[in-house]
């Protein structure tokens, strides 16, 4: 053990760091340690200007932080360091060697604007190509599994049905009821101006079953399940589990993606239906509060709601489920390296899931309009 090691707990180490300038000599003293050196750092470097010799004879303890200070003080004039005891000199020598090691090469200058736009475009094209590849692989694998349903892992399917479906029921009921209550209350004020409060049930009912039910169920699926798929598959990708599957001859898409896609496609109509029913219940409660008896509300709903509207909403929710699960799985499987990759994958799954659901919903709106559905 060198004497330089005798630190903090010893009287030597508690001696305050100090410096003084005499002519061309800068003299350090006391304990030049991580604790003591910062106190004198700036002043000592100012005092070091022009010093040609640095005396360390009174330095009791030197650690690598103190050594950095001494070497910095010596650097401008290439001052001679003298008087150091053997242990202090050993630390100084080690620090000198460490500081003189080659630094990282300077980063290449940033690309010009045109180059950056090009790089951004190329990266976008690569991402698109990977996305199309994923879509093709999934479609091909789905077709293959249709021919051999045994290749589908039913145990996994059940687990995902439970996680994406059953466990989302309470949240769906809560949100559905609240949406029904809010819509009924918000529409009651303008409707009352026209004496048309009796039309609140069809207004809320049609909004829910055609549009809001599938859309909000999709947001729930995206936030709860799409992100979970991305995080789970992203972690597997980062841990090289996906590569291990490929090497074992197991198609990651068949094992990991298809059960999730199927589960999402199956749970979405159920979640949507639950959302619709909860919303209608919430609306009925508000109507009751406004003085409309429940049988009247039910009669209004029967008169205005069609099976076609309900089936249209449930049908598009299946596509929402497939798209959300697909985007979540793709984000997970294409996750990069490092600890941020999983977080990035989950974020892009949620954002991508919600954006594509709304875009898809727009396309359905045009389609239904053209079909006069």
């Amino acid at each position: 053990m060198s004497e330089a090691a005798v630190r903090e707990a010893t009287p030597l180490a508690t001696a305050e760091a100090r410096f003084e300038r005499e002519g061309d000599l800068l003299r350090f003293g006391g304990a030049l340690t991580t604790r003591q050196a910062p106190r004198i750092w700036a002043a000592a470097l100012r005092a070091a200007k022009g010093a040609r010799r640095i005396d360390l004879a009174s330095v009791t303890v030197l650690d690598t932080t103190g050594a950095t200070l001494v070497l910095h003080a010596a650097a401008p004039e290439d001052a001679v360091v003298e008087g150091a005891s053997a242990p202090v000199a050993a630390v100084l020598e080690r620090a000198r060697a460490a500081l003189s090691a080659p630094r990282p090469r300077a980063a290449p200058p940033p690309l010009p604007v045109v180059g950056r736009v090009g790089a951004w475009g190329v990266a976008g094209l690569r991402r698109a190509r990977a996305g199309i590849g994923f879509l093709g692989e999934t479609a091909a694998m789905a077709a293959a599994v249709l021919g051999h349903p045994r290749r589908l892992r039913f145990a996994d399917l059940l687990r995902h049905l439970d996680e994406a479906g059953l466990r989302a029921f309470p949240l769906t009921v809560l949100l559905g009821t609240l949406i029904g209550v809010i819509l009924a209350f918000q529409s009651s004020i303008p409707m009352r101006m026209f004496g048309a409060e009796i039309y609140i049930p069809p207004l809320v009912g049609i909004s829910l079953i055609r549009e809001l039910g599938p859309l909000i169920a999709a947001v729930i699926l995206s936030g709860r399940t799409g992100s979970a798929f991305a995080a789970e598959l992203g972690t597997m990708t980062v841990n090289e589990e996906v590569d291990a599957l490929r090497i074992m001859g197991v198609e990651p898409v068949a094992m990991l993606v298809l059960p999730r896609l199927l589960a999402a496609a199956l749970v979405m109509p159920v979640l949507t239906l639950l959302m619709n029913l909860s919303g209608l219940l919430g609306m009925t409660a508000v109507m009751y509060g406004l003085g409309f008896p429940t049988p009247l509300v039910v009669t209004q709903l029967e008169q205005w709601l069609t099976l076609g509207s309900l089936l249209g909403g449930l049908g598009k929710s299946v596509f929402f489920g497939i798209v959300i699960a697909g985007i979540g799985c793709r984000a997970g499987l294409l996750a990069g390296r490092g600890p941020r990759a999983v977080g990035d994958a989950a974020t892009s799954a949620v954002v991508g899931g919600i954006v594509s659901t709304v875009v898809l919903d727009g396309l359905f709106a045009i389609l239904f309009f053209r079909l006069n559905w």
Partner: protein
Amino acid sequence: METPDIHRTAVADPVVEAEGLAMAFPGNTLFRDVSFQVGRGEVFVILGGSGCGKSTLLKLLIGLHQPTAGQIRILGEDLLGAGGRTRRDLLSRFGVMWQSGALFGSMTLLENVMLPLEEHTRLPPAAREEVARLKLGLVGLSEAADRLPAEISGGMAKRAGIARAMALDPPLLFLDEPSAGLDPITSAGLDRLIQDLARDLGTTFVVVTHELQSILAIGDRCIMLDKQAQGMIAEGDPRELRDHGTHPTVRAFFRREAA
């Protein structure tokens, strides 16, 4: 639980003192009655087979877990009993290198090493960077200062972990499995680094490992834990234990024999 292989050494100036440590989970006693002292400037090795509680013992020593029984003093202070400033002060006086490096993934190696300096010192920013560069230089990572942890190898991550642990020049460093999973050359380089730092900077090391070559290369003294004995079965100079150990597990360990 005295066994013939426990050779207690009186330590004049102990940096770590463990007295009667026990750790038990419901239905499972990991170890009990573990006592030892680590002297200033020593490289002290905690060794044993997988699952014997080496890493748990390390976590007790650094105050992450509470022992079921026993006392721990680090640099003369009771870490578990310390609160507020005393605890913060004590935490700045030892460093830990985690098994996987535990580097912060969103920061470069340089920023990783600068973090403790920002938290615990009042060095000017430029000086902090210079001190952090020096620490990376000490472990031979100067050129990788601007890289992210995801861009470096396992051996480099461990060395960067040591650099970060040394950021504040603590007198005491805990290393968890420094050479596990590394090739022999990198592993030998790390052993050399530990020896150099112990010699030149006088740092005390408490190293958890089961790498036999490392133990013999760097260990001044060691203790050995055993799963079956639920505690310590040996204490002393690892080379002595290799040549003269009598406990069957100690002999099997040092001769690399299957149990």
